[in-house]
């Protein structure tokens, strides 16, 4: 990609993807626009050269992630922003286990085979996104701060004014929900066509 104009074309086509990602993380259109705008400006002012689209995308998303992290930090700096941590109730997944706490026969996780082969399927990512957006708002936010933006748990506790225990509880319930959703809608789904 030696021609700077082709960079600009690429960035314009990336913009929509970035906006979608930023909206998912921030759940607020205005701050999502800001984050994307700033990330694009930073990307365009850089003199980096890229050999292919994937490299460019990786770099631009790294910048975008940093912008989103900045916005989240700024947003939670004001005191009294403790979030509700019980969006998914404590007993939400109790029906997966028997009274002794062992997996019930039909709820016991079965193998997903070679799950990474799904990474090349567009439908898989569509299902993944649906499952993410089906998580309750704050649960999704904590989960994505941890797994997509790379926050440490201590940092999440501090930013969101919740206790470490609550943080682990929220993360665990998010994983339970997401695992179940992917299991039902993709890995053990009969509608899967990949």
């Amino acid at each position, binding site marked *: 990609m030696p021609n700077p104009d082709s960079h600009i074309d690429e960035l314009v086509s990336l913009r929509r993807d970035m906006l979608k990602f930023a909206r998912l993380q921030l759940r607020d259109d205005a701050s999502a626009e800001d984050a994307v705008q700033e990330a694009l400006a930073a990307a365009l002012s850089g003199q980096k050269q890229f050999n292919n689209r994937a490299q460019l995308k990786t770099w631009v998303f790294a910048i*975008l992630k940093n912008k989103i992290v900045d916005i989240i930090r700024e947003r939670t700096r004001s005191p009294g922003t403790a979030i509700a941590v019980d969006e998914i109730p404590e007993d939400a997944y109790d029906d997966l286990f028997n009274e002794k706490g062992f*997996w019930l026969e039909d709820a016991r996780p079965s193998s997903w085979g070679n799950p*990474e082969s799904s990474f090349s399927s567009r439908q898989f990512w569509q299902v993944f996104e649906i499952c993410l957006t089906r998580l309750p708002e704050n649960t999704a936010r904590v989960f994505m701060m941890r797994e997509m933006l790379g926050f440490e748990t201590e940092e999440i506790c501090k930013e969101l004014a919740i206790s470490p225990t609550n943080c*682990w509880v929220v993360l665990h319930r998010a994983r339970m929900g997401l695992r179940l959703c992917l299991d039902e809608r993709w890995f053990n789904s009969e509608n899967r066509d990949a």
Partner: protein
Amino acid sequence: MLNCKQAAALMSQGMDKKLGTLQRVNLRFHLMMCSGCRNFSDQIMLLRKSCEKFPQQGSPIEQLNNE
């Protein structure tokens, strides 16, 4: 001895902090005997891997709609 519900919570916690020695021993012991929990462990690891890859996938829903 851990049951599956406790094991699942520990596996999840283990992705966010270092577990204590006793917790790790108990978990390993449970996993040796429980294929369901071994699958669970693989699957929450896959969630992490998917999250790392997710931003690179752009907007699959919009892409589909635009085709």
